[in-house]
């Protein structure tokens, strides 16, 4: 997925990785503008590496530039179609922008790529819930909670989601 060819690396590959890491470090320090610059440099040095585009997408999201974020995630997906993170991140842009159909398609595609990724199920549930599709949301939340038991997600706390599911179920029963 990441370094198809470990050795010898091209100089540009090394510089691309360096700027990618500097971009991450800038993000850690809470400086999204600097992160963006490093990550733009990273993809300029090596435009064939999906993780740099994925990270670039996140930098654009932090700067609230969703169009460029989506473009970056799409590029990461093109470069590595079997990598689930940029798929979930792209769907996240649609979810944030209330483009429900695109968000749903995006999360379903991510689940097709990796059906054990609890985070994708959780946000699919949120997409359904935002559209008042409560039965679908309950099923997706329950799947997320079930998967998180073996592969925890940083996106949600299973016990809180479980309580939320119970509330949704009671609403379903209310005429």
């Amino acid at each position, binding site marked *: 997925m990441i*370094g198809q060819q470990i050795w010898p*690396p091209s100089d540009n590959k090394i510089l691309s990785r*360096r700027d990618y890491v500097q971009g991450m470090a800038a993000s850690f320090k809470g400086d999204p503008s600097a992160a963006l610059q490093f990550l733009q440099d990273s993809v300029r040095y090596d435009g064939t590496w999906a993780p740099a585009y994925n990270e670039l997408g996140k930098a654009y999201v932090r700067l609230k530039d969703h169009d460029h974020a989506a473009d970056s995630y799409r590029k990461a997906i093109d470069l590595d179609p079997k990598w689930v*993170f940029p798929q979930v991140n792209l769907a996240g842009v649609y979810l944030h922008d209330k483009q429900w159909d695109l968000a749903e398609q995006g999360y379903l595609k991510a689940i097709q790529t990796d059906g054990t990724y609890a985070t994708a199920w959780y946000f699919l549930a949120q997409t359904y819930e935002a559209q008042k599709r409560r039965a679908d949301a309950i099923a997706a939340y329950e799947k997320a909670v079930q998967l998180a038991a073996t592969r925890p997600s940083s996106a949600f706390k299973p016990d809180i989601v479980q309580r939320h599911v119970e509330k949704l179920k009671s609403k379903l029963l209310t005429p």
Partner: protein
Amino acid sequence: MARINRALDAGELVVPEKSSAYDLYRHFKPSLSAAALNGIKEKALPKLNIAGEVFLQKRAERSSFKESEVRQLLSIYDWAADLAPQ
């Protein structure tokens, strides 16, 4: 040069602080000959590249990094970029 080589052989590329190969390299770099620099480059660059890729592979498999990991990666690629011909 011998201390840098020992640290490289021990796999102490960028940690522990002050005695890692990278810290020693930065300390002794001004006094190293061109031949010694070349020797370090030939030995260190493949190790740095592999170490960096292993870290980055982790990033691809889980969504977040610890700050300490980012610091190590920064040192790995700063050194690799310093050694690579520009």
